[in-house]
């Protein structure tokens, strides 16, 4: 059944006001961390294969990674990985284990806490 031509095709969309709740933020974090990881991975594979094949380049690479800016970026990547993992496990739980209405905010908080703890562990022991 097509929309009669007398009805406009104008459609209004949501803005930030409709999105101001935890589950939506959890989605944004999950998606953005996924994008970061997807962009980082080819670089990661390339760096690994190059650095290990050529020892001199390896030493220079390791020197470079000791800079604070690089260490900070590494921590962000570990955070992205941890947060994507925790959020993903939360989704797998909701979709395949089952739904508990009253656990929703708790699972988000838990996922976030675990991820941040992991990143901090990395940062502090580095």
């Amino acid at each position: 059944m097509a929309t009669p031509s007398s009805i406009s095709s104008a459609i209004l969309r949501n803005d930030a006001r409709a999105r101001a709740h935890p589950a939506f933020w959890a989605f944004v974090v999950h998606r953005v961390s996924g994008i970061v990881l997807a962009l980082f991975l080819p670089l990661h594979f390339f760096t690994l294969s190059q650095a290990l094949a050529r020892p001199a380049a390896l030493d220079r690479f390791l020197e470079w990674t000791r800079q604070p800016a690089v260490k900070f970026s590494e921590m962000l990547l570990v955070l992205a990985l941890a947060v994507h993992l925790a959020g993903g496990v939360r989704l797998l739980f909701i979709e395949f284990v089952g739904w508990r209405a009253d656990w929703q905010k708790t699972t988000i908080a838990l996922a976030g806490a675990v991820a941040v703890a992991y990143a901090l562990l990395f940062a502090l022991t580095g």
Partner: protein
Amino acid sequence: MATRSVRYAAWRFVLQRASAAVLALCVVVHLATIIYAVRHQLTAEAIVARMHASVWWPAFYAIFVIAVAIHAPLGLRAIADEWLGLRGRATDTVLALVALVLLGGGLYAVRSLTA
């Protein structure tokens, strides 16, 4: 029976979630090894030596790479569709290429590490 496109779509979903479950395990191991290596201040040579010590390392990282090659493009597919308005044959072809690049690049890195 469902049409082919519906069955493909359902299988994409199954593969996305299955690869996610595999990655959940791989990433936990990976994060643990990173923390271990950082804690014990292992040099790159030391890490590479340990990678050669057991056949389980290349096996583990190969499975890791295959799961990533399935999971990442499927995730990007949803983003391309919803946020970039890119969908259809051309987009799926590009994403299949991304999968191959990740698979090839990843397995090459694993071979460099463990061969």
